[in-house]
């Protein structure tokens, strides 16, 4: 079992003829992902990464039964690309693109609330069900099959924590990078709910960072609704207020909201231990699994 993606998932890659799109479409296929098509306006009828390219997402859905999109479209056009995925009524859209204007994402967010499509990202590494399929740019070789679900706002931090787990022989059901932007599709809470309802997931890692209140809200949700043990990590303890730490969403505001302290204490109050180092997170997970 796993959540959101497995080897039956039929993937269309938006932006498959671009450098990143092509490279990662190939990498996804090499990992076992069922990439069935690409969608790039003006490139219909061509072939890329060994699959047919269509002018629109809808054509890819009609011709190849695609049910999921992975989006590698430059930021200026990515908002539009997400709308296209939503209007094609896919099950899942994964937006890898970094740097989409926030107002574009606010409009996407509104449309999202009116559809049944789930959006992961943007500005995220995607998600992976080890041994079955990956959607996005995560390096497949560090993941291993197992019973820990992982959700994270940061890509490379995900890899770090997974590495700490895998090195101890602790595998993962699914790892989801939800993205570092202020407005994202799938939240911590959505991902926690998926893992809580997944029979194979016996423990959950949640990697947050400074900025916003998503971790605090997730802590409250865990307290009420999650029985699966959760271990946390929060990046940005040393970040000074008012300075954005890379991610558009990672900033401690002048009035002190979004601090690591507030997130750690909310998680602790919900019974979630928070590691001081990625290695300590693995310690907690190992203890949960006995």
């Amino acid at each position, binding site marked *: 079992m796993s959540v959101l993606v497995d080897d039956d998932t039929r993937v269309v890659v938006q932006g498959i003829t671009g450098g*990143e799109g092509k490279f990662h479409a190939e990498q996804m296929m090499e990992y076992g992902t069922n990439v069935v098509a690409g969608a790039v306006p003006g490139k219909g009828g061509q072939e890329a990464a060994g699959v047919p390219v269509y002018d629109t997402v809808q054509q890819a859905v009609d011709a190849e039964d695609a049910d999921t999109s992975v989006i590698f479209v430059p*930021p*200026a056009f990515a908002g539009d690309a997400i709308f296209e995925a939503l209007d094609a009524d896919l099950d899942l859209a994964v937006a890898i693109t970094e*740097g*989409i*204007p*926030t*107002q*574009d*994402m*606010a*409009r996407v*967010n*509104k*449309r999202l609330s009116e559809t049944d499509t789930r959006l992961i990202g943007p500005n995220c*590494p995607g998600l992976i069900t080890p041994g079955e399929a990956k959607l996005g*740019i*995560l*390096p497949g070789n*560090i993941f291993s099959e197992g019973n820990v679900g992982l959700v*994270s706002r*940061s*890509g*490379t*931090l*995900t*890899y*770090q924590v997974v*590495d700490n787990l895998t090195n101890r022989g602790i595998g993962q059901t699914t790892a989801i990078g939800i993205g*570092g932007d*202020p*407005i994202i599709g799938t939240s911590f809470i959505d991902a926690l709910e998926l893992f809580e309802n997944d029979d194979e997931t016996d423990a959950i890692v949640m*990697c947050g*960072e*400074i900025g*916003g*209140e*998503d971790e605090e*809200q997730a802590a409250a949700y865990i307290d009420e609704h999650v029985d699966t043990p959760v271990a946390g990590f929060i*990046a*940005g*303890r*040393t*970040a*000074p207020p008012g*300075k*954005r*730490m*890379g*991610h*558009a*969403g*990672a900033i401690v*505001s*002048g*009035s002190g909201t979004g601090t690591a302290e507030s997130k750690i204490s909310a998680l602790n109050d919900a019974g979630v231990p928070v590691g*001081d*180092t*990625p*290695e300590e997170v693995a310690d907690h997970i190992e203890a949960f699994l006995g």
Partner: protein
Amino acid sequence: MAMKLHEYQAKGVFADAGIPTPDSQLASDVDGAVAAAEEIGYPVAIKAQVQVGGRGKAGGIKLVDDADEAREAADAILGMDLKGYHVGSVLVEGAVDFTDELYVGITMDRGEGKPVAMVSTKGGVDIEEVAEEDPDAIAKEHIDPSFGMHPYQARKAVYDAGVDESVARDVSSVLTTLYQLWDDRDGADAEINPLMVTADDEVIAADAVMNIDEDALFRQPELAEMEAEAASTGDELEQKADEYGFDYVRLEGNTGIIGNGAGLVMTTLDLVDYYGGEPANFLDVGGGAKADRIANALDMVFSDDNVESVVFNIFGGITRGDEVAKGINEALEQFDEIPKPVVVRLAGTNWEEGMEILNEDLVTVEQTLEDAVQRAVEYAAEVSE
């Protein structure tokens, strides 16, 4: 990230859109400031043009009644260091005789994923303090970005805030214009605090804040030009980082940090602190960095005189270990002597290829993040002993 306009730039944008603003002139020297004051007529406010809040409390805004006072104030403010920013110009502005100070603002509510319009009769003070101490004093109206702000929403926010009937129509109109500006110009925040109300019921924007979404500057060419002007007062190294296109934040410590991906770089900073060191900076090379970018990153960190050691932590997804190793070699081989010890930890995509390429005579290699950070902290401590 938001690009902050100077007050005078934001006021220009607001005035062009029809929001009333006081008479004002920008001056970059004392004589110019006095001449501007004479022309506008006393009393005038002399206001430091730096993009930080709390200018008044920090001595960056002075109200003056004659030419001598104007000269004294301009002389004191021009060239001063205000919260780390050099004051290069002042806005000389006709003082407004007000009876009331309001607050109006538009921002993105990230929790809701939609814009929110805010109005308060408690203007003239730090609105974040009001939000904390008396949240009910700020009326909020969320806006559906696919429709924009309906006229009734502007009225609703204004009436909910308890704005006096005599100016309600004008304040609604200012709020409507402000939302349109925010929407058209890819605003992150647009704020007027205070929006002054005069004895004869006129409303005037006495301050102006306009922050633009940096990710949208590609479609805001006019504002992108203002950025070039606005950015000229920051930290030298942060400017250099801008030129290289790095996400960089300068800190106070002596352990330099380079990595890929914001979350992992932040974690590296936190670990430096955890193992008893002090981070000198945050530097994210981003995803998919090629060799020249890696070399630039090392150049950046070596330019900081405080740095005594560097930890280079790359966990490749989209970034490839061989490119990173090439970049490190390139940057270090140009030195007869390596300026500061560099600790490298490579993992993820192509890390084995990277390790083969990496010239291990020039760097210290560690296998794990924890070991790499501890080693770099030790190096920095040895030097400062």
